[in-house]
């Protein structure tokens, strides 16, 4: 099956002047699943979600800024009665509409309506085989519903993607998952690490430890190779990496393709259902809200809001910890902002790095995180974690870096050298 990938990957030109090439839009926080890793704690709709007219105006503004692709998410996007109106508006404006879904109630009727409205790509979230997926999604039978939805969307000619989170229970299930996806005929499989946000911060046993990357990434690379043979593009998400021995293979299609840093506010935009604008849909609302579409134009927020501009001004001087002196510091700039800010209340030091884990292992060291502060219980919130560097052989603690106070970005982390 021919893919429609050509216009979806970022090009070198996309980095030269920031514009929202890809927008990810939470059109409602209402959800029919109860996922215990949900960063936005989706359940009921927000009390002040944008109206249809306001949403259509957002579509017009996105197109005017040069946006190429708009992915509708939730909550669960199809729980908004006007979701196909928005799909059609995105397509009519010349942008590629996509939907990311848990698919519990993505019935054939809904699929048919979405296809008729112009939906050509759909991503279904699957986080394990049936038992594991259902436990994480909080609803028995949700795995079977997700698989059925993929098969239905296939019949309607959509390009299929699966999004999977790498959590603490999934590693042994990934090969069987790939076999299932090969049978179905998906086009892409996007992988990302579960991040300590929202309910995942509550259920922190789901989080993999930084040192476990040394076990996880070789498995992912084997899967990448097998997927490639079967025509499936296994795509590492922005918190997978960085610059380890598989970077040249799984991130791009030439020897010049490699991770280029967090792209929040550079070529990615996030929209919350109440009109809050962020540089990336996953980022915490506070302190990454650049304003609300009800108060300012999208162009003004994109161009002028400091909360969206952190990647345009970030330098290696903003990095700290082991990232500060890294060989790749000026390219990587500590990777995914979302992943690190939700751990430490401050980005710029990322223990979820393959290269870093390998270098630490050469020194007989490894890193793990420990939760020290609970998240308050709001959508897109986070708690606090300490980063412990310890010896592999006897577990003796070498360093401990504390989390920043909540919702601050100033100051430096406390560094306690114990040995």
């Amino acid at each position: 099956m021919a893919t429609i990938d050509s216009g979806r990957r970022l090009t070198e030109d996309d980095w030269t002047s920031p514009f929202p090439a890809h927008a990810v839009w939470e059109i409602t926080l209402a959800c029919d699943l109860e996922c215990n890793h949900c960063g936005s704690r989706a359940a009921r709709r927000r009390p002040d979600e944008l109206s249809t007219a306001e949403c259509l105006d957002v579509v017009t503004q996105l197109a005017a800024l040069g946006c190429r692709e708009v992915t509708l998410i939730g909550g669960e996007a199809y729980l908004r009665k006007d979701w196909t109106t928005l799909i059609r508006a995105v397509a009519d404006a010349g942008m590629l509409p996509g939907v990311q879904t848990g698919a519990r109630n993505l019935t054939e009727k809904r699929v048919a309506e979405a296809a008729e409205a112009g939906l050509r790509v759909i991503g279904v979230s699957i986080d394990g085989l049936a038992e594991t997926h259902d436990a994480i999604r909080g609803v028995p039978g949700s795995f079977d519903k997700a698989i059925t939805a993929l098969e239905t969307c296939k019949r309607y000619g959509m390009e299929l993607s699966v999004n999977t989170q790498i959590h603490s229970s999934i590693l042994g299930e990934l090969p069987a998952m790939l076999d299932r996806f090969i049978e179905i005929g998906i086009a892409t499989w996007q992988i990302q690490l579960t991040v300590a946000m929202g309910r995942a911060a509550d259920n922190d046993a789901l989080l993999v430890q930084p040192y476990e990357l040394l076990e996880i990434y070789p498995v992912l690379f084997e899967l990448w190779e097998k997927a490639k043979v079967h025509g499936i593009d296994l795509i590492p998400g922005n918190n997978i990496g960085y610059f380890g021995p598989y970077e040249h293979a799984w991130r791009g299609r030439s020897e010049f393709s490699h991770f280029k840093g967090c792209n929040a506010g550079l070529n990615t935009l996030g929209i919350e259902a109440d009109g809050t604008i962020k540089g990336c849909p996953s980022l915490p609302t506070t302190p990454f809200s650049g304003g609300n579409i009800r108060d300012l134009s999208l162009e003004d927020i994109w161009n002028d809001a400091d909360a969206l501009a952190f990647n345009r001004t970030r330098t290696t001087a903003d990095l700290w910890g082991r990232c500060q002196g890294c060989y790749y510091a000026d390219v990587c700039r500590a990777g995914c902002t979302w992943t690190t800010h939700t751990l430490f209340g401050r980005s710029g030091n990322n223990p979820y790095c393959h290269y870093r884990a390998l270098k630490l292992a050469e020194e007989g060291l490894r890193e793990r995180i420990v939760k020290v502060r609970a998240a308050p219980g709001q959508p897109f919130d986070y708690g606090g974690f300490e980063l412990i560097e310890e010896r592999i052989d006897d577990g003796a603690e070498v360093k401990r870096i504390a989390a920043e106070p909540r919702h601050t970005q100033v100051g430096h982390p406390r560094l306690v050298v114990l040995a």
Partner: protein
Amino acid sequence: MTNRAKGRVPPQLALCHACKSFVKPEEVACPHCGEDIAMAAVRNADRMEQLDQAMKELRGLLEGLGVSTSASGGPTGA
């Protein structure tokens, strides 16, 4: 000046074909494995040419047997 004007073109790294690690373009010797980067690139190009030739020969043999050779996939080494 608005923030929009502040584009950030990420540095482009090169690949050491000896250890498959990315390196800064000005490097002569790979800081990760110590190999001469230019020589490793030449060796890799030779290897890829040999692989390409072998694939052509294999494809010819298979097509001679009436086997379709249009499947996707191929060598993963860059």
